[in-house]
């Protein structure tokens, strides 16, 4: 039960600022979520705080690899590749 940070992360520290469990850490390879600390913000009705503030699509995923903020969900910029993927 923990979220993960992907290569899409731009290292902006926003998730680290808002994580109530202090679960986000900066390792040599980049930002990551310490598994045993993250409880996916279960007690917060608004859901994972990192996912709520992260400005980058696909940077945070659940344990199934699904992006909390999928392509197109934040910027509103039309995602050509996304459209193609959906119509396939």
């Amino acid at each position: 039960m923990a979220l993960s940070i992907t290569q899409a992360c731009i290292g902006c520290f926003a998730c680290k600022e808002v994580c109530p469990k202090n679960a986000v850490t900066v390792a040599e390879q980049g930002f990551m979520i310490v598994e045993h600390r993250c409880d996916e913000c279960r007690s917060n009705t608004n859901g994972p705080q990192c996912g709520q503030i992260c400005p980058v699509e696909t940077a945070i995923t659940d344990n199934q690899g699904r992006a909390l903020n999928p392509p197109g969900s934040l910027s509103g910029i039309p995602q050509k590749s996304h459209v193609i993927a959906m119509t396939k």
Partner: protein
Amino acid sequence: MKLDKMTDGKQPDSSQLKADTQAALVATHPCFSKEGHQYARIHLPVAPACNIQCNYCNRKFDCSNETRPGVVSKLLSPAMAARRFVKVKQHVPETKVVGIAGPGDPLANPKATIASLKAIAAADPDVHLCISTNGLALIEHLDKLLEVGVKHLTITINCIDAEIGKNIYPWVYFNQQRLRGRAAAQALIDQQLLGLEAAINAGMLVKVNTVLIPGINDHHIESLAIELGRYGAFIHNIMPLISDPAHGTYFGLMGQREPSSEMLGAAREKAGQSMQQMTHCQQCRADAVGKLGQDIDINSLENVEPALPPHIRVAVASKSNLLVDQHFGYATEFQHYLITENSIQAEANFSWQQYCGGDEQCNDDKANRDLNQLAHFDLLLCSRIGLAPRQELEDLGLQVDTHYALRDISDALRQIQQQMQSEQSNQHHLLVANAANAGCGGKECS
């Protein structure tokens, strides 16, 4: 709600600031007064996170509220920021103003912002501290800002109508959730106006930045300026939208046009009837240094041999007094060393209240010691340390190193000194490389 409150006949309340204090605040600040040009300012990039998204911003780059997009500045820790300030001040003694403007929003990074401001105020009590914010978290942090001595504030307010705002801000993180559309814009505008009012009442000199976006807020500039005037904002800085598609912003990619200089002039003229206009803004980058319009190349500065040799203050946790062999949580004192390029000097031990029992995980709730007391160190050597105190120390700008666990202290110090010597030359290369990439638009607003 906010707007209702404004219609009850509230008068601008600038009398709250004694005229002469205000004049002094204005005269030496290069952004608030044209005469302030002879004084220099430095922007310190310590605040990467942001709590909103603006359509003219690509978060891969610096905050474009106060900065020109296109350059990712090297992030500084609070301790590094204070050191950079001291270094710049040595070379440019006219440096009177220190601003924190990003690269995200200073108040979305309150710990780093406040720690930096404190460290700078300690280094030079006469310096003007200012921050530029989107205003969302201003109310929440205003007391802290006043406490550390911030007297100049810039808030970017692009509109006071949520119908307009929803086309500028795709989302706002407020009350632990990402708001979108009208609700997002309304939350932001409410908080901005609350913050504006409170800051002015507290005696701060408030500049308001507005990004002029043709077809979106250009028709609204006049009524915005009237409201700002009623609140008692000090000066208004209307900045042209920069929407070069190469910056990858929403506006840039969607073909939103930039205002012509005639449009900008017209907007300033209309707004000028209710708000003093600022016409000398250069839209500086979050890491700008120097006098307006003649930025000093920070890279060349960093390469110059500083008057004081660079130094590292090291705290060592040691049981045996010979080896780096103590868990941070057990330490009741730290050995204290000052390392410069050609000396390693032992200073008086630093006594300390034990942080915790030193369990493996160093629980958060046990973390009740004030780690701020350690903030004057640059580097902490210990055998182990819990994740929570490590992070907190790093937020304070301390580097924590456990690689020297069980090694001889004097060996460790010597190795750090060697690293420091080679870093000096490495940093040189890195900064030169960065400078070569720093191709910001170079667009000026007047």
